[in-house]
């Protein structure tokens, strides 16, 4: 292979495409059986995608959130569950990259994550907190160099398949519910006892079962920053942007299928446009709107990334909330349009135009952090924060 050919072969998008080919092959089976997308995640590891966000100094590639969102969208076009596992892993890695560089243990963990392609899961949800991850009931017990934690985690996506889990808790037995820390627990340092089955409408392959988590680890594995800062400065933005990347992928594939349907119909009818052709134009319009929405969010994040004040400002939170709201709602409209275009061929499973999985997967978008909760937060902020009226800034 020539050097330019090798470079093209190693480009992030080319590696993501190869993983997407594997993910697409198993997508229907993973959806039907509700099982973990093992083949796709193995392909991510083989293409070394799990460590791309880690800085080069720690053995990664220093990929930006924009580049990672692109990978999410490529994977999302093939298998939304695989893409969401990748996105959720990268959201955890973003916390490590943004907040772990002051701590020797977390730096070593970054090196190992990049080297051994470790998959990281998240346990932020807990029974009794009413879905607000900025509150914890459980408290970490720090006993000298050791910390212990038990958490009734009602959702740990791919928890049973992860190499490490980042778990939130109160910072001590005496701390207020909002006084939280996050701790990295590595496989072998915890036990998971399954309490809730993940049998859902869509996103069936994320295997977001509930578990009783019990862990014990060196206290050095607790992030040195309060979780409130981690949530505001790395999780909020990366969640909304990377999820949106996945959702864009689902909608884009639906539009692609609808276009294939319209073309096939037009060919049969000797060039006469089928009735769905107009809707295809509408769907393409909405897809472009969705793309613009995500790209503007990515740009905003890229500009604010190193400015802690800006990242924790209300204006930035509102903008990220708006990205999430728009993406999660628009994809449903787009996929519904595609379904109407493809008709019964889209409604049926097992055709080249099937859209059932897309539609079911897409319905998770408005629920993962409920859009109503996000609207509520934004409307509260708008009591003091002026809405952004600038076009360019």
């Amino acid at each position, binding site marked *: 292979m020539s050097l330019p050919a090798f470079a093209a072969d190693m480009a992030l998008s080319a590696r993501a495409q190869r993983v997407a080919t594997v993910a697409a092959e198993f997508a229907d089976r993973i959806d039907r059986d509700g099982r973990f997308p093992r083949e796709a995640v193995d392909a991510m590891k083989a293409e070394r995608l799990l460590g791309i966000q880690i800085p080069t100094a720690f053995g990664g590639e220093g990929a930006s959130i924009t580049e990672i969102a692109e990978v999410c969208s490529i994977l999302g076009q093939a298998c939304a569950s695989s893409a969401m596992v990748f996105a959720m892993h990268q959201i955890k890695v973003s916390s490590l990259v943004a907040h772990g560089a002051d701590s020797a243990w977390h730096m070593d963990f970054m090196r190992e994550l990049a080297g051994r392609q470790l998959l990281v899961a998240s346990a932020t949800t807990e029974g009794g907190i009413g879905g607000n991850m*900025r509150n914890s009931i459980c408290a970490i017990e720090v006993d000298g160099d050791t910390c212990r934690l038990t958490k009734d985690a009602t959702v740990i996506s791919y928890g049973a398949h992860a190499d490490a889990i980042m778990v939130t808790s109160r*910072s001590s037995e005496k*701390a*207020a*519910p*909002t*006084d939280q820390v996050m701790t990295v627990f590595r496989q072998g340092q915890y036990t998971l006892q399954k309490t809730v089955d993940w049998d859902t409408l869509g996103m069936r392959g994320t295997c977001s079962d509930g578990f009783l988590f019990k862990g014990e680890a060196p206290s050095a594995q607790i992030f040195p920053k*309060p979780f*409130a*800062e981690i949530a*505001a400065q790395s999780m909020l933005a990366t969640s909304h942007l990377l999820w949106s990347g996945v959702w864009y992928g689902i909608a884009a594939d639906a539009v692609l299928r609808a276009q294939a349907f319209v073309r096939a119909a037009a060919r049969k009818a000797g060039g006469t446009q089928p009735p769905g052709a107009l809707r295809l134009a509408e769907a393409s319009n909405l897809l472009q709107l969705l793309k613009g929405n995500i790209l503007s969010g990515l740009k905003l994040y890229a500009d604010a990334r190193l400015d*802690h*004040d*800006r990242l*924790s*400002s*209300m*204006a930035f939170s509102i903008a990220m909330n708006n990205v999430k709201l728009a993406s999660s709602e628009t994809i449903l409209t787009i996929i519904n349009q595609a379904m109407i275009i493809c008709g019964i061929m889209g409604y049926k499973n097992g055709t080249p135009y099937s859209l059932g999985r897309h539609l079911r997967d897409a319905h998770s978008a408005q629920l993962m952090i409920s859009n109503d909760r996000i609207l509520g*937060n934004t409307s*509260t*902020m708008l*009591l*003091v*924060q*002026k809405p952004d009226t600038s076009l360019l800034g």
Partner: protein
Amino acid sequence: MNETIRGLLTRVGGLPVAVTELEDGADLYAAGLSSFASVQLMLGLEEAFDIEFPDSLLNRKSFASIAAIEQTVSHILQAREAA
């Protein structure tokens, strides 16, 4: 000013601890100040001091402690006098 801020915190802060027990430098978010309560607090401060917070000061840091709030409000009042 300190008293007014503490009065507002008591009224709208919804903290699980007594405001009198908080030091001026104590982290209000760690003490349990929710984002909704922080907005109520901002509205109360705007009303009490007849000010408006510019967007550049609407971040966590400006309201992170009683001392930080004093500094934020003083900053706005001074800027107004200078104008």
